[in-house]
């Protein structure tokens, strides 16, 4: 960007240049981009591991790697994807970039803390990678670190645990920052119920991050203590209780899945009204369903432990609450559909990804119900059905929402436009590849194929092989999409400030936004989604 002669107006991307100015910037937009770039790199690494696992499973028996390698691989794949990619994911990237803008603030409440979180995040992420390669022994416990195995396995489990701990801390600080920002920094006139729904979803998310993450923090510390100091909280030979570990782990990790999906829901809730030019249907129910998911989601962790020998009473209790937590999700789905209904629907790439989100999330969610029901969970627990469930809901849900978000806000972030044609083609590959990759796993899962299996019974081969083919199709779509975006972030046509005729605040400022977002802090006089008022642009 040095030899451009044309004078671009100053914005957050060009008002200062050089790597150093990025690494020390406390501008929320730049920090958001830092997260985006680092997360993308980690995503590619973990995705390639996923592909390698699929190749290994092309046929029964050993094909390209040993059992040890495979076990290490799904562990690190899971750790990266969960702790580094999807938990920070939307909140840290788009939350950082757009939360302050959407509520009419110049930055988050604690900008320095925000930068510090990113450094913590990177430290944790690096530790995670290091654990994979140090001493030639990758941890092979699965991302769940179940004891006693994780307390005995002779590998770098402690490093991996520390990594997860540090990442958790980064996530807590981000959540804390967002809550304070939302409480204290809203523009004048922006009452709680005039706040757009993406910030609302971040608000619900942030509470989970704040109140659930410390539990996994202390749990991981306990496992570390168990390994290094021989305190046997979970070790049965010292009187400890392995199932108690599972409780503590899932007290965090179930709410964590809502940390992944809530911002995704928030994103699509922004996209549907814009591309239908119609107000969000049921603003208030959507707000309350977010909060309800956050609250009830806190009490259902036991559904991951239905076969662990938990007491009968707990089992039906957790199953019952699990079903209740599906209701707020249902409310959201129906409200989204009604938002589009009667609108002027424009099928641009962001909307394309957003409706694929609904489709994939619905499948993922319904299979979640099959898992939440006691009788069927007995058959499905720890089979590849679970693997398919969470890939549908995480990758199909949160992942596709991420894709939707980047296609939606890309012109705002870079001030340029990507190619719609390439976006649509990539979408085709992604969508077809995705379903081919994961749908067969539902079937083999019901038939009893367990997860984390390096080798398998030949009777499952058809499903497994189809799934591998799906992975190859998916990869084409991913590469296509990433190339399209990277290329056009520099070379794309200059985008107008408000290409989609959105009405939330971020669309009322230039693209890319100026360094301090607003010349003048806006004063809000009405609800967020009003398309009938003639607005600027």
């Amino acid at each position, binding site marked *: 960007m040095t030899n451009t002669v044309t004078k671009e107006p100053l914005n957050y991307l060009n008002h200062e240049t050089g790597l150093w100015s990025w690494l020390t910037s406390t501008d929320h937009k730049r920090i958001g981009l830092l997260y985006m770039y680092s997360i993308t790199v980690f995503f590619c690494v973990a995705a390639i591991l996923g592909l390698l696992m699929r190749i290994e499973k092309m046929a029964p028996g050993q094909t390209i790697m040993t059992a040890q390698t495979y076990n290490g691989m799904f562990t690190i794949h899971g750790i990266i994807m969960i702790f580094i990619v999807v938990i920070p994911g939307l909140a840290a990237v788009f939350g950082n970039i757009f939360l302050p803008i959407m509520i009419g603030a110049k930055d988050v409440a604690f900008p320095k803390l925000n930068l510090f979180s990113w450094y913590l995040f990177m430290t944790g992420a690096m530790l995670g990678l290091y654990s994979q390669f140090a001493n030639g022994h990758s941890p092979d416990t699965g991302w769940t670190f179940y004891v006693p195995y994780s307390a005995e396995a002779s590998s770098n489990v402690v490093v991996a645990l520390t990594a997860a701990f540090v990442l958790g801390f980064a996530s807590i600080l981000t959540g804390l920052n967002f809550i304070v920002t939302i409480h204290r920094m809203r523009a004048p006139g922006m009452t709680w119920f005039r706040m757009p729904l993406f910030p609302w979803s971040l608000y619900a998310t942030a509470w989970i991050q704040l109140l659930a993450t410390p539990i996994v923090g202390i749990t991981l510390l306990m496992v570390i203590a168990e390994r290094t100091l021989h305190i046997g909280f979970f070790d049965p030979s010292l009187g400890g209780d392995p199932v108690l570990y599972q409780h503590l782990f899932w007290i965090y990790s179930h709410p964590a899945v809502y940390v992944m999906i809530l911002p995704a829901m928030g994103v699509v809730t922004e996209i549907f009204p814009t591309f239908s030019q119609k107000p969000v249907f049921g603003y208030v129910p959507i707000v309350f369903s977010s909060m309800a998911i956050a609250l009830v989601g806190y009490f259902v962790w036991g559904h991951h432990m239905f076969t662990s020998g938990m007491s009968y009473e707990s089992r039906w209790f957790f199953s019952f609450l699990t079903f209740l937590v599906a209701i707020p999700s249902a409310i959201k789905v129906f409200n989204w559909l009604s938002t589009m209904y009667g609108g002027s629907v424009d099928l641009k790439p962001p909307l394309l990804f957003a409706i694929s989100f609904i489709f994939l999330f619905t499948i993922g969610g319904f299979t979640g119900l099959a898992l939440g029901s006691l009788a069927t969970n007995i058959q499905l627990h720890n*089979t590849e059905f679970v693997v398919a469930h969470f890939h549908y809901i995480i990758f199909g849900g949160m992942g596709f929402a991420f894709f939707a978000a980047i296609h939606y806000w890309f012109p705002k972030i870079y001030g340029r436009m990507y190619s719609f044609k390439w976006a649509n083609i990539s979408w085709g590959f992604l969508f077809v590849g995705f379903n081919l990759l994961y749908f067969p796993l539902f079937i083999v899962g019901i038939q009893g194929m367990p997860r984390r299996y390096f080798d398998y019974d030949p009777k499952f081969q058809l499903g497994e092989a189809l799934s591998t083919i799906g992975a190859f199709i998916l990869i084409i779509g991913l590469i296509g999409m990433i190339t399209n975006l990277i290329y056009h972030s520099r070379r794309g046509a200059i985008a107008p400030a408000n290409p989609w005729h959105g009405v939330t605040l971020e669309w009322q400022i230039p693209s890319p936004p100026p360094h301090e977002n607003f010349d003048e802090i806006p004063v809000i006089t009405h609800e967020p989604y009003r398309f009938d008022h003639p607005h600027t642009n």
Partner: protein
Amino acid sequence: METLFNQGSNLAGAVDRAFIFIFAISFIFTIGITVLMIYILIHFSRKKNKNPQQFSHNTRLEVIWTVVPLIIVLVMFYYGWVGFAPMRQVPKDAMPITVIGKMWTWDFDYGNGKISKELVVPYNRNVKLNLVSVDVNHSLFIPAFRVKEDVIPGYNNYLWFKPIMKGTFDIYCSEYCGLAHSAMLAKAVVVDSLDFDKWLADLQVTGNLPDHPGLVVMQANTCLTCHTLDGTKVIGPTFKGLYGRKTTVVTESGEKEVEANDDYIIRSIEDPNSEVVKGYNRGLMQPYKDKISQEDLQKIVDYFKTNAAK
């Protein structure tokens, strides 16, 4: 012939009813939502519909789509619960069998020192499995019977069923338990009551035969999960006829041929990665230096001598 969706036990029917109900509802809603979306995309597309309507709420609709799903999920919960409840109520007359899970095999203990590698059960009789783990978490999973419970050290978990179909069924370990998790398999064989009694009577008493001290050491160190005694190759080379065997090993400086004598065997245990048997991967076997005493190492070697290469 085992088909894919056998209902091998008395519990399977109710589980499958829950499956069918949940999947049917899911199917209807997923199709419905998809069709509606496509309809919206076509019917309200910007080309056709330039003037979006501006309605934004409807309380009656909100109530409907809160209450209807609520009722549906409650029914789902009910089906799941009804299918599950009997699983925890073991009939008094159930025949107890102790299942011992260890890295990475299953032992089925019929009492009186009778231990089998296969779970043989009588047709149409209630069976209770007591689940015991000697090391880490495992999980006993018999898909055809729709039963699964975790096998957790320090816990007395259990499950029960009544086999209602004769044949041989797969048993999997479905809780990750380390390297050979996917090889921790067994078979459940359902036979006539009479055949079962005969089989049990013929089952060798192995449980309380005194083992060779070397073998005991190896069992305690889970060597036999990677090495077999009967000549089959699992993760490491078999121990059958090890002593005195000529083996090609790969070292830092290249390949060489060695004869398995006392020294070599002890080296291979204490520091397996310096001389790796050709065709196997370095790093699979952990060094046991300082983990097994010299005394015990000698016992192992002594045991190998009892079935040396001919």
